[in-house]
């Protein structure tokens, strides 16, 4: 796979990955802006509104009919946050010519359609259609509210919110309800125009077409991209230590049969000059995967839960441990999760454990070369970081991580928030009071 990158026009960058092995090509466009509570819901709403209709295909039925004709080509809105950088745009995928009856190349048509979706929505009097804005706003509100339906991810999200309550990261990629409710189509139209002018833009392509061909297709398609004074002043503020001297505790009650315990950590001073390979290996030793200490001890040895695993949010310098437990196992699960971290800190890591962790991390990185979706996410994150490290290069760095490197990361990690989602009947509440005093 060959990687190239260029600036097509001021602040519009193309990352190009040439590969012959896939049956479909993929392409994405992302506007980059600062994640903030005031604007997050507007950012999240814009792609959905734009996806409703363009000047040539003004409603969903016409737009879908066109995409169906293009052999089920897809263009979907994507909202991500990479650290505190909010990325909004579209992800497209379409069959490579070799697999189409007439051998037709869809690159030009798809570049045009994706650009049209971003730049030329259907409007009235220059404004986004109020019925589209209102309808998508309702759907976004439903989506924000629906996070409660999946308790596992809900608990993780709530822990992050509480832990980062003084930081922009507290707001989810979809924004919050009050800000979303306040959106008006006129204000959103103005904001959208401003965003187009000032945001750095990241384009990505992975497929069989050569760099020059893709560059030309996208340059033509995005020729009308308005470029004003660009706002490159976007990034992530990383808090190195816990907010208070003692870890904060937050408890929430719901009518559930299983409790969700989530611990939020700061990765700490290792984030000053993060050794990514070491952080990934540390995470694998401690809590991600079947050879990790959390899986082997909290689940297998003590049978305390069905899942207990850690995940690192590298670009914000955080680590989350999440676990599904019986309510009464709160203390024992928490104690064991923290004890395993202590074990990593003090170097209770066997050569095997280190080797397994390195293999798992390197294997994941190498496997990502076979997935266009993962490659797209990888290179977008690299673009946000200003880096050009490939998954293969990071996999090689992983091989050189030592036990001391892993211990150093563990020692830098600091617990900041304990979050517990538990049941709501009366008996539980008495128990919970006890736990409050302990915490």
């Amino acid at each position, binding site marked *: 796979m060959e990687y190239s990158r260029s600036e097509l026009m001021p602040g519009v960058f193309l990352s190009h990955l040439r590969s012959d092995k896939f049956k479909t090509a993929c392409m994405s466009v992302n506007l980059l802006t600062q994640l903030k509570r005031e604007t997050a819901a507007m950012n999240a709403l814009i792609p959905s509104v734009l996806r409703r209709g363009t000047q040539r295909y003004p*409603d969903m039925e016409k737009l879908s009919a066109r995409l169906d004709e293009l*052999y089920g080509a*897809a263009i979907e809105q994507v909202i991500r946050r990479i650290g505190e950088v909010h990325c909004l745009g579209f992800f497209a995928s379409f069959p490579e010519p070799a697999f189409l009856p007439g051998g037709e190349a869809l690159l030009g048509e798809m570049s045009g359609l994706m650009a049209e979706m971003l730049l030329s929505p259907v409007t009235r009097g220059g404004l986004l259609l109020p019925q589209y804005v209102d309808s998508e706003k309702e*759907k976004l509100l439903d989506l924000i509210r629906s996070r409660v339906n999946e308790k596992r991810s809900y608990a993780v999200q709530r822990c992050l919110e509480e832990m980062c309550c003084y930081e922009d990261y507290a707001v989810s990629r979809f924004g919050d309800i009050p800000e979303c409710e306040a959106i008006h189509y006129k204000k959103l139209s103005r904001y959208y125009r401003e965003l187009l002018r000032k945001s750095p833009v990241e384009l990505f392509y992975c497929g069989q077409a050569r760099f020059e061909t893709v560059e030309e297709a996208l340059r033509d398609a995005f020729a009308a991209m308005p470029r004003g004074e660009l706002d490159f002043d976007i990034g992530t503020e990383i808090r190195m230590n816990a907010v208070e001297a003692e870890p904060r505790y937050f408890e929430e009650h719901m009518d559930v049969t*299983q409790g969700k315990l989530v611990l939020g950590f700061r990765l700490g001073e290792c984030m000053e000059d993060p050794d990514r390979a070491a952080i990934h290996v540390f995470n694998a030793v401690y809590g991600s995967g079947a050879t990790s200490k959390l899986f082997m001890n909290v689940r297998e040895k003590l*049978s305390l839960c069905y899942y207990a695993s850690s995940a690192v949010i590298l670009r914000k310098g955080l680590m989350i441990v999440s676990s599904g437990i019986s309510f009464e196992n709160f203390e024992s699960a928490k104690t064991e999760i923290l004890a395993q971290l202590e074990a990593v800190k003090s170097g209770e890591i066997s050569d095997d454990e280190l080797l*397994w962790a390195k293999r798992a991390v390197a294997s994941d990185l190498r*496997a990502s070369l076979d997935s266009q979706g993962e490659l797209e996410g990888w290179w977008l994150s690299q673009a946000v970081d200003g880096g050009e490290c490939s998954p293969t290069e990071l996999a090689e760095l992983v091989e050189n991580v030592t036990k001391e490197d892993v211990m150093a990361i563990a020692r830098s990690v600091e617990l900041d928030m304990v979050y517990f989602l538990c049941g709501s009947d009366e008996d539980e509440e008495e128990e919970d009071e006890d736990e409050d005093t302990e915490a």
Partner: protein
Amino acid sequence: MKIQKLDYPGIGETLYSAVLDNGLEVRVVPKKDYSTFYAAFAANYGGACRRFTVDGRELDTPAGVAHYLEHKMFDLPNGDSALNILSANGADPNAFTSSGITCYYFQCTQGFEENLRMLLHFVSTPYFTDETVQKEQGIIAQEIRMGEDNPGLAIYYNLLKMLYAHHPIRDRVAGTVESIADITAETLYDCHRVFYAPSNMVLCVEGNVDPETIVQIAEEVLPKEKAPVPAADFGPAEDILPAERFHTEAMEVSAPQFLIGAKLTPGLTGTQAQRQRLVAALALRMLCGSSSPFFTRLYADGTLNNDFDYEVDASAGTITVIIGGESKVPERVLDELSAEIARVAAEGFNEAYFTRSKRASLGARLRALEDFDNVCVSLAMDCFDGYCSFDSYKLLEEISAEDCRLFVAESLAPERLALSVITPKEAKA
């Protein structure tokens, strides 16, 4: 051993397949330029296969055995866990149990042959003691509890209970905390002996591999003898109409969730089964897919959102259409869908819409081939139903707009539809 090679030039794939002397079917899809290796080893045995005969004894096993067995298969006689060994070797192993099958799989980028040997070895080596079986109860009980809090599962099983009067597909695959309490090492041995015979299993591999090596490894590691293929007893045939048509339950959700379901003619195999599923999928795409007049209208007026989806779910001898999502007014969705079904039954699908939907379906199927997990698991499931999903691309060409109209008119007739709803709990005062 004869390995059959089949080229699928339209989709750029080649499938190698063989049936070993012990009855195991092997399917291999070589992928030259990929780093990933994927192997799926599946038994035609799932949560619904609870009643069967072994050595003249009729057994009626508790709900949740197949899934419990899946958890315990990873234990090796020397005290090691296959999950740890594979993980330690850099592989990403896992397993799932559905109502129809149990599937063990791993993905890796190195040491493939060694990992494959381990996969075949541990799945064919039962080792249970009452102590180890007992110990797993805590973990599985937590998994069951997690499922009980999941509205998606609740609404799905409520629907199956409405559609099926007695077929064991109605019960949760993982069972209940009570039903798993009676499972012993002996139960697990019985089930393993009956259902994990190579003649009741399939091995699917995708990656940069040589098909002959795969076959050779399978012959070396697995038992040589060919055991008779067992049959689970799912009880008497079900009526084609739902046992119950409407059901509502309250849970901790943000908005009402709903599923509309219908049973299709069960028991088809081979090309007939494949054709039935292709017609159903294409007809549903046109009736209520993301480009359909029905969906675009209800999306625009706020009745539906992007959660809306449909699927054809074939498992344990049943086949079920499931359509659903989130809506503030599920009953209205059912009314509108019924009206659309009536319209399509009367007018059919127009030819231009049909042609372009077929194109879209082709593109979507092509995209699905990029996913190792999807390719291997589908190939395994198709194998038990006597067909191969790679033939779908060719078979799709033969399907007509009239086939699709007939499907909608007959299989989705109003009296065949059931509606399962989860509503939000009333806020406490």
